[in-house]
């Protein structure tokens, strides 16, 4: 208990600092968000870059003594040594000016609630990784991808012609050839590699006409709320690239597998609370929003692509997988609540959302199936998450060879290409359209 309280206080301190950040766009920092521990905004760029912000001096404390009225120099209209400083009523401008706006205290804000809400946003770096994400989404983990997708991957009818050569060209283009400099930075080659692979997959529209019923959405904001135990949880914010489709994904696990999850117990990690590292706030709105309007022609979320480039903040593979699971769950939950209402229930038609995350070389794949929105209790039917971890697409892509003691350890160019990873990527892309 003590440990949980300690973690909660630590979290409160850290979340107040999380709110105040400064975007520094200098070459050295690659637009890193700098945390300022004392919670004040510092709008000058120079001092922010080096973390040197002088502390603000606290105003002198004036003690009020009940019954005694201080004698001030207000009537005299000038300073008199020995008399108290008068306290005037605060001046109201009468209209809201954005440059001189002071926000009310947290307790006075209209959306203030006594019960705190724990929010998972795009910057959350959870301590317990996938275990925590599974507890929060009431899911059961299955290692490896489902069999349907693996058979799709092996099927030769779904391959692109000269697949290996073209994927290797795409990797070389993004890693080696894309810049006038020596080598492109990660912020450039990670999105360009993902784009190249998506272009290759999209080229299959020639043979699979169902692939035309999809569209990519870049900066959309998700909102999903649920209750678990006594706490309120939310998934909010922009997450990544979402591939939307006109038709929903087919259900991966049959009814028997879903019912058998009811017997499996959720893994807890006492003494660490499952709410660790989530943004804890009292000012929130219980919103459920897929990010798109109701008449959107592509309402079903197909795949979420996350890119981990190491700048906001750097996520280890375990934490990246947790982020994938949480956002896939958030998308599925928002869709379920849009379709079936907010009442928690077991879904007759489970919703499947896929997710792919990469850091430019390693790929993580997640297929999430939402079976139930009844997340209050720990028992009952649970959701399913298939996780395939740490699939390298290639081993090295070097501009200059690595030579130690006059022996070439790693040659220049692309080496160690693994074709299976792209086959899985393609299978996840084709799932639902074959």
């Amino acid at each position, binding site marked *: 208990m003590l440990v949980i309280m300690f973690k909660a206080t630590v979290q409160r301190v850290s979340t107040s600092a999380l709110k105040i950040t400064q975007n520094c766009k200098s070459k050295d920092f690659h637009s890193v968000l700098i945390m300022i521990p004392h919670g004040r905004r510092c709008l000058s760029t120079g001092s922010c870059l080096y973390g040197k912000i002088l502390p603000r001096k606290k105003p002198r404390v004036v003690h009020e003594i009940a019954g005694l009225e201080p004698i001030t120099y207000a009537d005299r209209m000038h300073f008199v040594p020995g008399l108290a400083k008068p306290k005037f009523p605060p001046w109201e401008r009468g209209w809201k000016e954005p440059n001189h706006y002071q926000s009310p205290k947290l307790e006075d804000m209209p959306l203030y609630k006594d019960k705190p809400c724990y929010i998972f946003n795009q910057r959350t770096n959870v301590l317990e990784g996938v275990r925590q994400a599974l507890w929060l989404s009431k899911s059961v983990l299955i290692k490896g991808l489902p069999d349907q997708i693996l058979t799709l991957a092996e099927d030769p009818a779904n391959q692109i012609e000269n697949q290996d050569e073209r994927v290797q*060209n795409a990797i*070389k*283009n993004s890693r*080696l*050839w*894309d*810049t*006038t400099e020596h080598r492109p930075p990660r912020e450039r080659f990670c*999105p*360009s590699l993902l*784009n*190249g692979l*998506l*272009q290759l997959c*999209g*080229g299959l*529209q*020639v043979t699979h006409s169902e*692939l*035309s019923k999809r*569209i*990519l*959405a*870049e*900066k*959309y*904001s998700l909102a999903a709320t649920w209750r678990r135990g006594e706490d309120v949880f939310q998934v909010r914010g922009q997450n990544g690239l979402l591939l939307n489709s006109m038709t929903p994904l087919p259900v991966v696990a049959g009814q028997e597998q879903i019912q058998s999850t009811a017997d499996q117990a959720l893994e807890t990690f006492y003494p660490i609370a499952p709410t660790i590292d989530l943004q804890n706030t009292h000012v929130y709105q219980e919103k459920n*929003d897929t*990010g*798109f*309007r109701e*008449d*959107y*022609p*592509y309402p079903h979320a197909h795949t979420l692509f996350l890119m981990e480039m190491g700048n906001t903040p750097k996520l280890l593979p375990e934490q990246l997988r947790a982020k994938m699971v949480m956002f896939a769950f958030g998308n599925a939950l928002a869709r379920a609540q849009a379709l079936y209402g907010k009442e928690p229930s077991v879904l007759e038609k489970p919703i499947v959302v896929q997710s792919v995350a990469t850091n430019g070389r390693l790929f993580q794949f997640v297929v999430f199936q939402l079976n139930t929105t009844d997340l209050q209790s720990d028992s009952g039917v649970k959701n399913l998450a298939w996780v395939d971890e740490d699939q390298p697409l290639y081993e090295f892509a070097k501009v200059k060879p690595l030579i130690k003691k006059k022996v070439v350890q790693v040659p220049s160019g692309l080496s160690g290409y693994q074709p299976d990873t792209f086959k899985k990527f393609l299978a996840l892309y084709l799932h639902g359209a074959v």
Partner: protein
Amino acid sequence: MASCSRLSLHPFLSSASVRLACNRNVQVEASTAKSLYPPIVPSRTAKSKAAKRRVVTEFFEQLRSCTAQEKIRALTRVQRKKYVIYPHTFALNADRWYQHYTKTTFLNGLPEKYESASVVDESVLSEVRAVVCNSILQEHWHAKKGRTFIQKEQEQLVTPFLRNAVCGLKNLLAKESRVLTLSSLDFDPQVNYYWLRGERTIPEGHRRGRVEPMRFQIDDKPHSQIRIPQQLPEFVPLEAEISAEVPVITLAPDLLPLFRRQYDNHIFIGAKLEDPCCYGHTQFHVVPDRFRRDKMSKRGLSDQVEVSLRANGIASLFAWTGAQAMYQGFWSEEDVSRPFVSQAVITDGQFFSFFCYQLNTLALSPSADGNNSRKNVCWGTESMQLYERITDGDIVGLNDAVLKLLLQFLLNKPQC
């Protein structure tokens, strides 16, 4: 007293005299005779104009036998101050100046290939319409977005729409044109080109009074580009006579204004030389927020909107085709043996302009431009409105002509 003996004129009159026998047939013998001495050439190291000329000639001779990579490196190695040409510029009437610096003639309208109304498949056109409409509506209506800063509106609305439209059209038309399957689509690529054109007399400094060539650099960042492994066919033959003239600007570039800076000279098509997709197909540009129609009309420059689009098209496409030609080993002394062709679409979300460019000559430097009668050609349209406005969930006034042109542009493919 010497007596003047009368010399007979006989030896002088005879054609077989010794003197004439020496002069006869000297030319023929000299060419076949082995020369005892090496040819007399100017020095290489003397401080003279002839020596400088010899050094330059020998350098060019040595370059002819190098690979394309080495040629580019040798021509761009030395950094000097150069004029930087920006495709998006606030300068007035910049398109005529850019035409002069790139030796381009501008023809209104598009080449005959696109002018003659070709039969367009209705089903394909309706699919194209669906893709474009869905992309527009997703950004403007379906996705719930808040308002951003005024200077970032294009980035929030037009850039994602164009991304989705280009991807969707490329995947859709891959079955019509096989080269699109093998093409490479890049987003936010870099295109750079560095060249020499014209001469100026250095006004001040220790090199005052000397004549030096003017150096230019274009650094462009289009929204996206499609590169293909084979070249597009030419619009007009290489040595064809074009009626329009290249405008001649006698004023110094500083008056446009063009500013000089010194940094790395880059020649880049979007990927390095090793990439198999080394020929350009189509580029897509987004008009920046500063040069949007409403902003230009607020500044009183409504007539400059078309001018700036033309300047953008000419500069970007010249840089791209020039870089493609240099990747193939051509340069100002070794002019192109086949024309290099590329296309561009410039849009601000609602208005679309289409440009085609054919590079016929790279020989723009002072030494090579003397007897060069070829000129580069750029065709361009006025900006056409794609839609009138977007009401709740619906696009009003969609213009099919723009979609047809987009379709034809993307279906342009190399022969065979």
